[in-house]
């Protein structure tokens, strides 16, 4: 909610007190005459308004003005010529000389409902572009330096008749190859990754929780973490802990059997 500054609150309070003091006398005379026609009057101010309960929400001077307007409407003869009689000289103005009258008071928030709160935004240039530029430079420098010192593997020419031991898939498929040691190939190679991919695609349709803060979606976060860790551990075992015959080894004892 927006906060009303203190000096405005103070000023409004002073104005209200001044008006209440001024309206005390005329109110006593006006009320009995105005009460009966108020029901038919076109204004939407409730007839019970003078009671003072609503005095806080609807300012007293507005109530007063509408009441006098209702009074005038009742006193004016029902002219058959039309609803408005502009030429009628006998129609007086309101207590303060006003010619307008209050139809209704619309409280803030009753009609307009602002859903999109204004957001703190910054210019993409330079705030975002600079960051992206630095990130791109950084990754280029990293790749360049890494590539100068570490060569991509090029083993001997492919030979269909000579199976290396062990034969390993690319590292991102080594989790699947690891599953092959535990399950039937159809389960390990197709069913499990297929279901995992399918569930991943359906994640937004399965997870109907609207929250996006981690503390409000602990189940989803823990499930995903377990899932990611499951694959990460399988990939690491497949990469570093599998030697000849795809048997379990310790890389610090038997060496690395892994090519990028």
């Amino acid at each position: 909610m927006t906060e009303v500054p203190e000096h405005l609150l103070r000023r409004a309070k002073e104005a209200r007190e001044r008006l209440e003091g001024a309206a005390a006398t005329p109110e006593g005379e006006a009320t009995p005459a105005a009460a009966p026609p108020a029901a038919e009057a076109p204004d939407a101010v409730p007839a019970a308004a003078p009671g003072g309960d609503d005095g806080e929400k609807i300012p007293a001077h507005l109530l007063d003005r509408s009441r006098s307007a209702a009074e005038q409407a009742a006193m004016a003869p029902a002219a058959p010529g039309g609803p408005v009689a502009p030429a009628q000289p006998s129609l007086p103005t309101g207590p303060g000389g006003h010619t307008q009258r209050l139809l209704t008071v619309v409280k803030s928030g009753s009609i307009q409902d602002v859903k999109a709160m204004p957001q703190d935004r910054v210019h993409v240039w330079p705030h975002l572009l600079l960051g992206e530029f630095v990130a791109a430079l950084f990754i280029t420098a990293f790749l360049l330096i890494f590539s100068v010192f570490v060569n991509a593997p090029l083993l001997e020419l492919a030979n269909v008749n000579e199976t290396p031991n062990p034969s390993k898939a690319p590292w991102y498929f080594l989790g699947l190859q690891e599953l092959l040691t535990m399950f039937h190939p159809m389960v390990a190679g197709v069913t499990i990754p297929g279901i995992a991919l399918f569930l991943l695609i359906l994640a937004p349709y399965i997870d109907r929780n609207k929250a996006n803060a981690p503390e409000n979606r602990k189940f989803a976060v823990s499930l995903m973490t377990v899932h990611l860790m499951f694959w990460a551990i399988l990939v690491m075992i497949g990469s570093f802990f599998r030697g000849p015959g795809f048997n379990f080894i310790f890389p610090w004892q038997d060496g690395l059997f892994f090519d990028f």
Partner: protein
Amino acid sequence: MGTQFGDKASDLMGQVQGSQAWISIFRPGSIFRKGYTDSPRNRSYVIMNSVLYHLHPVKVKRHGVRVSYTLCLGGLSFFLFILLTVTGIFLMFFYRPTAAQAWDDIYILQTEVAFGLLVRNIHRWGAHLMVLTVFLHMARVFYHGAYKPPREFNWVIGVILLTLTLLLSFTGYLLPWDQLALWAVTVGTNMMGFTPVFGDQVRFVLLSGVEIGTDTLLRWYVLHVLMLPFVLIIFLAVHFWRVRKDGGISGPL
């Protein structure tokens, strides 16, 4: 002496930047134009008048600019894709996808072509890095709950992009035609051969025959350099477009 040279240089720069050609190339607000001043209007122009930058909106939510929010993972994945395209085009000049020539071409590329080894290294390590950044980008998006409505379809496209990235990497794996490539792909395609009902057909289509040979190499080469990048770019375009249509970056948390 030094100041004289400096004056001449700045004079020349002023003449170039004031010339008709220069003004027609760099649109108003460009930082390359004469007299770029830092104003909100010019900041907007920098984005709006650049074919590359206008992938971005003019303004973004403040929290989205923080490096710790996105870790730049999506942007880096895209940047790596561009880097891989550029280095890949270079490699294509020296490579023929046949069993008789592929390995020799790579060997000659590494030993005799200027920067051949370096570019191949960048391509290889960049590809592995891209698999990693795409994967981490997915994890980041999940942990921020950014896959939730209205962004659920963009998540689906993202998973497709992850799959395409893996396929691109896997098809590229075969191309050097060395022992590592041949047997890694043998293991991989054997796994796919266990697809229920039509496993043998899947394997036949993938290998362009019953076992890996020169036909497989051609097929995977075309997949790697043309078809998969083509499909990936289409999904990428939709992915970027949906980011903005779905209300920009998610959050704040």
